[in-house]
């Protein structure tokens, strides 16, 4: 993600979670979080459980998320030298001051200062790829966009005309495939399966992004599935398996070689040791040997793991 994409992502997240945008600038955004976003981003679970139990009016936090720190820098005071001693024309709002680093009792105890949730304080942060705040937005988007039920919207002319539309239901799943040994590579497979014909389509996510989808179930909507969820899942997995079988597995071969090399080495090491040990020491050494064997397998064993990142029902107009 470049900085432009980061900004786009961040803005869309804030809007999707109903945050109140106070000020928008190419270089930054000033925002008062919605309760939902506050729970995602500020780590104040204790505060929120307090609000929920007591019914107190929640006070969400406000941030300035900076996307372009260079142009966000406050402008140099003009006519330096002449204004010396005079108060600046615009006093900086005390709230805008970023938290002073390295100077709190918490930091002395924990090494870092967890964000101090102070009411009404405006916290300024640079958002970039890899920054903690963006990671939190990533995680929130993932956690809150996992299970979907969406209907394709009919073109406006046809809406309200009393005509009922028939829909075909698709099950869409974004599979994350992990090729793992002591290293890992990942692939994303976005698949959709038609619940009436069993047809499977790749790049399903992208196809869906091109359509107008709504969570509202239209009136007079008729839904009819032929195949069951079970069958659909099995067919998706079988399809994916065929695709995965085509991948290159040289990495797995070399991982197996590394593994057997290690196994051979510790076999000869512990083999020698164990023969020369007294019985009482043997037990601990044998345990160590077993532990080490398990560690090697844990480390090197090549495997492919498939998880669904998100999935949902897509009811598309015929």
């Amino acid at each position, binding site marked *: 993600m470049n900085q432009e994409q980061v900004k786009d992502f961040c803005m869309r997240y804030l809007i999707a979670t109903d945050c109140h945008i106070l000020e928008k600038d190419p270089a930054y955004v000033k925002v008062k979080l919605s309760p939902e976003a506050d729970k995602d981003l500020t780590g104040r679970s204790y505060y929120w459980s307090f609000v929920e139990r007591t019914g107190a009016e929640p006070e969400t936090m406000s941030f300035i998320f900076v996307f372009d720190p260079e142009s966000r820098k406050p402008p140099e005071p003009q006519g330096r030298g002449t204004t010396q001693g005079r108060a600046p024309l615009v006093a900086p709002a005390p709230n805008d001051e970023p938290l002073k680093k390295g100077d709190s009792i918490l930091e002395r105890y924990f090494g870092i200062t967890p964000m101090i949730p102070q009411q009404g304080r405006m916290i300024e942060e640079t958002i970039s*790829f890899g920054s903690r705040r963006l990671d939190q937005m990533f995680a929130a988007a993932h956690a809150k966009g996992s299970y979907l039920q969406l209907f394709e919207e009919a073109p406006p002319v046809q809406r309200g005309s009393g005509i009922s539309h028939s829909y075909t239901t698709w099950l869409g799943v974004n599979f994350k495939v992990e090729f793992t040994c002591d290293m890992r*590579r990942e692939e994303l497979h976005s698949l959709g399966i038609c619940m009436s014909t069993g047809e499977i389509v790749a790049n399903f996510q992208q196809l869906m992004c091109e359509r107008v989808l709504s969570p509202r179930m239209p009136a007079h909507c008729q839904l009819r599935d032929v195949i069951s969820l079970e069958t659909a899942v099995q067919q998706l997995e079988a399809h994916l398996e065929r695709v995965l079988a085509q991948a290159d597995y040289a990495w797995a071969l070399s991982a197996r070689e590394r593994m057997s090399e290690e196994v051979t080495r510790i076999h000869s090491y512990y083999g020698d040791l164990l023969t020369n040990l007294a019985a009482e020491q043997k037990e601990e050494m044998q345990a160590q040997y077993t532990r080490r064997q398990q560690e090697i397998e844990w480390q090197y064993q090549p495997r492919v793991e498939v998880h669904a990142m998100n999935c*949902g029902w897509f009811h598309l107009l015929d």
Partner: protein
Amino acid sequence: MFNPTTDIIRPINELVNVHFNRDWCVELAARSSRNGPWDQWELARLGVEAMESRLVHSFDQLQCLPHLPHLTPMPHQIDTARRVLYEMRGRAILADEVGLGKTIEAGLILKEYIIRGLVRKVLILVPASLVLQWVRELNQKFGIQATAQKKEYMWTQVDIVIASMDTAKRDPHRSIVLSQEYDMLIIDEAHKLKNSKTSNYIFVNQIRKKYCLLLTATPVQNDLGELYNLITMLKPGQLGGQGQFQADYVVDKRVPKNEVLLQQELSKVMIRNRRSDGGIEFTRRHVRNIPLSLSAEEQALYQGVTDFVKGRYRDAGSDAGSMLSMVTLQREVCSSRDAVFLTLVNLFKKTPEDSPYRPQIWELVNLIKQITANTKAEKAMELILSLGPKEKVIVFTEYRATQEYLMKFFKDHGLAAVSYRGGMNRGKKDWMMDIFRNRAQIMIATEAGGEGINLQFCHNMINFDLPWNPMRVEQRIGRVHRLGQQSDVFIYNLCTLGTIEEHIVSLLHEKINMFELVIGDLDTILERMEEQSTLESRLQKIILESQNDDEIREHLHSIGTAFHDTRSRIQPPPVFSEVEREVHP
């Protein structure tokens, strides 16, 4: 029958199985039957975009660098991370020389594994004084949410825990740690694990771990047996069994054989980067001696103390052994009257009441009372003022009494100073450092050891007095002149003329040239030189036994010569030359 709750594991080919996780089917079925709740399409789209942006497309391309907006690692650090990831496969000894950034290397490796989803649960064991520093570095530089272990529940509930070895190996912590599996184990100052009989070694050996990094600046290169133990902890059998190792590689515990083969084996598990002479990553050091003359009263005290010490030495039948510490009195006079006063009072108390020394000591105390000003402190203040109010300065002294005197002296003159000493607990030390960083211009420290203080934000150092142990001088310099120091470093040695201090400054600065020495060479040289007795006690002996200044000068000159001889003789053991690589940024 299809059961959506059971994950499916099937072989794809003869090498790997594919594992289909089916948790999602269960949840989807449940939400379908309840008709909800359903998530937002926009968030789902964002979620997929986020995942795509972080998808790891390749096995062997370093992923972590774009994730690290606050860090620009140096080439040797990136190179080290690559080798550990792709050649050593996550089990390695990082043995860079001090100051080349082993923590950065470990952080890069850890970050890479976290991004790839290969590491979640991490245990980092470091000396107690370094726990918070590690927490800070990993959080601030790497965005890795590491936490200092403070409460028992943290062992199990926090993913990345930093603790001291001493805590972790004690029950109840020990049994919790040993009951868990760690995706990664990192041990700083790992040379403490060189002995396989110690409780530390046995404990660490029992921890279940997938990847493991051992960090040490002292790669136990003097003793092959210790090196063997360290490597065996990482990869048992890498150097064969104990007996085989002895037979194959060891002539004497410090003398290896089959060096080429041993080199090859070592370079599979160990990386040692060395600082190249004059590498540009280090700023320059400027050393200046500030000569000053004692006031008449101070000179009188110095003379009095010197005569007293010589007298005691003569009375003791020129037996230097018990008298060496008496030289301290002379050194203290050069620092402050407060320092020598304290020692004299203690000496007075220890002296029998009928001893003829008692009146002599009392006389010296009377001389102290004549002194109204501290020439050196005034000189130091003059120097600090000339640097300007924005320049941070660290002042080192050997004596607690001097430290307290200076605190008061600077305060009386309106200069903000904080103190720092070994006896402070960890929290207080960190606090003092924070105040120095943010508010105070001056730090007055009696202790330079204890790896905990990093003062890269300060580049002026005043040696109010000098330790006679060159390693301690080295440690002082290392606090400010290290990686991350942006400016040239200025070192000022205050030097009282006509005293033993003048001799010592000249030995350390001019003869040994230690202020310009490359860190890391010194300990090796000293180890060779100090086989019989420490340099410090040799110096004391010279001061005590010499009849006059010329004699002292002659002795010190020969020490300087011996130092240079040793230095030129020292080559790193050939076995390490392959593993070590010079850093040329």
